[in-house]
């Protein structure tokens, strides 16, 4: 064997060793999760709910758990790049696409990496793939409770709802809220405005202002663009009901009750399944009954 061939052989061996490394790392004792989410980890809503769950798991499992989190990927193509990179690296035991807009990426990616487990939500569709988990929130349950309480507390009988786009857990929440309010007081007026955006804080704020000038004394809303609406409630002496994450600190004296998503409840089950060799094929729903949904009181609720 001449010198050149020997060098070539060494390079090939080195490449083989290097390419095998990530697989070797995935087989160590640390459970590694990678997650992508559309908005910021401090959005007081959807993305934060997943980030908080993973942070909680990290604090409970310590060195046995690790995660990376790609936030703010509202461009679906950007999320696709991150998800593919993580899958190709072979370093992760579970890859989470936290947003219903990422479904088609998972459907395409999961069959290519049958040894990797994927999870996505909010949805119930696992695409018939045995390495895909789906998860969703029965947000209508907490919505119903919030709505019932709101109708009970409302003096003007007018309640304003600021919604994003009429889909997914936002729609579930709003529908549940309306049903809850009407169950307590059939005469209560629940006015709903879907502003057509998950991010337009300005329009969401003015939607809240418009409800105020039409006599609403209670406001609620879903998704990350409601921060300005919460400020409107606070500044005008109205009450606020929230969902997805606790907004009690921002709402201060205006916050009554918040439905909080506890994804850690189902993530724990997923981790156990993956460690036992089951990589997917199941759809989860967080509910009040299984502890995945929790009602948290704000200052005005105590």
């Amino acid at each position, binding site marked *: 064997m001449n010198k050149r061939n020997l060098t070539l052989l060494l390079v090939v061996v080195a490449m083989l060793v290097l390419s095998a490394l990530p697989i070797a790392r995935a087989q160590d004792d640390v459970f590694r999760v990678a997650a992508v989410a559309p908005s910021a980890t*401090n959005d007081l809503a959807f993305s934060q709910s997943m980030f908080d769950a993973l942070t909680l798991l990290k604090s409970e499992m310590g060195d046995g758990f690790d995660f990376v989190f790609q936030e703010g990927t509202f461009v679906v193509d950007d999320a696709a790049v991150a998800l593919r990179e993580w899958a190709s690296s072979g370093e992760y035991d579970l890859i989470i696409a936290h947003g219903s807009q990422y479904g088609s990426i998972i459907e395409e990616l999961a069959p290519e990496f049958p040894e990797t487990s994927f999870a996505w939500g909010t949805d119930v569709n696992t695409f018939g793939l045995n390495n895909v988990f789906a998860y969703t929130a029965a947000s209508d349950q907490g919505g119903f409770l919030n709505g019932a309480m709101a109708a009970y507390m409302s003096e003007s009988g007018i309640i304003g709802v600021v919604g994003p786009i009429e889909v997914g857990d936002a729609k579930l929440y709003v529908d549940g809220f309306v049903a809850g309010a009407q169950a307590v007081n059939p005469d209560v007026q629940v006015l709903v405005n879907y502003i057509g955006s998950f991010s337009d804080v300005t329009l969401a704020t003015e939607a809240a202002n418009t409800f105020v000038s*039409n006599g609403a004394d209670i406001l609620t809303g879903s998704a990350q663009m409601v*921060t300005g609406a919460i400020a409107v409630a606070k500044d005008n002496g109205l009450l606020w009901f929230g969902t997805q994450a606790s907004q009690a600190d921002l709402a201060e004296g205006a916050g009554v009750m918040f439905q909080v998503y506890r994804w850690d409840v189902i993530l724990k089950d997923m981790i156990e399944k993956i460690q036992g060799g089951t990589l997917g094929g199941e759809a989860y729903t967080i509910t009040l009954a299984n502890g995945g949904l929790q009602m948290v009181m704000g200052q005005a609720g105590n």
Partner: protein
Amino acid sequence: MIENILAPSVFATCLRLSTPYLFAGIGEMFGQRSGMLNLGVEGVMLMGAFFAHYVVLNTGSLLLGVIAALVVGLVMGVAIAFVNVTLKAEQGISGIGVYLFGLGMSELLFKTLVGTPRSVSGFPPLHIPVLSDIEFLGIGQIFFQHNLLVYVAFALVPISAYVLRRTPLGLMIRAVGQTPEAADAMGINVARVRYMTVIFGAMMAGLAGASLSIALLNVFQQNLTSGLGFIAIALVYFGRWRPVGVMSGALLFSFVNALQLQISAIGIDVPSEFAVMAPYVITIIALVFASKQTEKPTALTKPFDRGE
């Protein structure tokens, strides 16, 4: 029914919604009249919004908040002018760079320095004595019960129209935007005029951001402006590079938005998709029927080279 739909509060909402468009749009208009396109308005707005909010959160002083937004605009304006005027960069590309910088940097600073969305006590409504009490047609509520920045934004319209039309400075700006070679031959320092307009435009964009974070919304979060800066640029084209035109566009767009909010608030069932679409559709229709007479600067986006 109609008096419910067209309640005074709808017009008041319309004026509030127009405010950030006026600041950002009129600032951008000055830049464009001198031949400089700044596609990065949104990025400067985000930085202005963040710093105004951060300063008010920590000092409680609204004046300092406004100054912070203006200073951020000034600094970014100098950088934009240096890249576009001195280095003669492709303005469309550099503008996208400014946008992405502002988007990422404001989020990073927010995350590091503040952490989670928090509200501040922003500019309170300023009831103008006597006038705010006029009940006839709701005039008091519509025009005279706003926060200070709303009045400033609308005052900017006649002032900038006057500056552009009736002052030597306005003449210089227009000359530089139409025929920079001729302006240069007449002894006007083209680069200096362009630096001025770009910096002024960026300062107004900073103020537009502040009008959101410490006057209208009183919160800051990731991507707070959500495309508002790009609509402001479109309004400059819509308004055919005239202050009153920019204001008309801002008012029309905001009015349709305010109207769709009111229609939902009084319980009229309109499909939400239609309501969301309406402002854009109506603005486009208005554009089709609007006067074709334009003052588009012929040297827009063209760097000036003295050819020495």
